[in-house]
């Protein structure tokens, strides 16, 4: 029997792997990838809680679906910003992005 705690531990590890990447990486796209890991870990939690604690309801599943869609929108906008920043400063290293206005 797989317990709920196993899912939670795996998603915790994934969450903090994402946090570590968020802090250590320099490239904006790598930071965004770390952010994806964080969001993905959170969505695993929603689904696991829903299945184990309230299996006759569907709230967790729908929050996961909405979370996935919001993540997709957020990624699209963030990548547009990154491409624009690349055009302005010629690099996607966060240390070079010192001015935020065009």
């Amino acid at each position: 029997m797989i317990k709920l705690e196993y899912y939670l531990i795996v998603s915790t590890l994934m969450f903090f792997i994402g946090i570590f990447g968020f802090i250590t990486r320099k490239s904006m796209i790598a930071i965004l990838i770390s952010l994806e890991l964080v969001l993905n870990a959170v969505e695993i939690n929603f689904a696991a809680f829903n299945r184990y604690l309230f299996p006759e309801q569907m709230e967790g599943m729908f929050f996961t679906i909405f979370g996935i869609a919001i993540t997709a929108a957020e990624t699209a906008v963030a990548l547009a910003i990154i491409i624009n920043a690349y055009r302005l400063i010629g690099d996607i290293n966060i240390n070079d992005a010192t001015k935020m206005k065009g």
Partner: protein
Amino acid sequence: MSPIINLLIFGGLAVAMLIMSVMAITTKSLLRSATYLLLTLICTAGFYLFLNYHFLAAVQVSVYAGGVVVLFVFAIFLTTKKDEVLVKHEYRRYVYGALIALVGIGLVAYTILKTKFIYAANPSMEGDAQLSMADIGTALMGTGKYQFLLPFEMLSLLLLAAIVGGILIARKDKKHGEKEESQY
């Protein structure tokens, strides 16, 4: 399936997922990083299958693998030069990151293991207990209790705003429009 096989599959998925996550944030090439992210997300879809959320697994694979990772790959192609060293060795940043991550893992794991979860009587993990598409559609399109039409519509507005914002931000500048076409 027998519990031991279940546990083995779960363990394999979990280990693969964590290894892929670590590779995604440590590898130097951004394109490899995106590929490892894709594998992580597919392992997550396996988790959803394991939890008997088949629709969720399908959404995960189609939206993430079909949408988000492809966006990442396009953005990487558009912004990364050749022979770029992406991770410079700044040990202070690594130390801070590892410290925060370890403290966080310890804190959260302690809380999780200390909490007594009240399991539902029948988590319905086995067999054909999955949700039917009719139930999902009814819940997504209704306005009653436990139904989700309002968040659904808000989400469509959000996606519209994201489309408009993405085009507005990434389009070529009219004043110095010598750059190439917009990407999206």
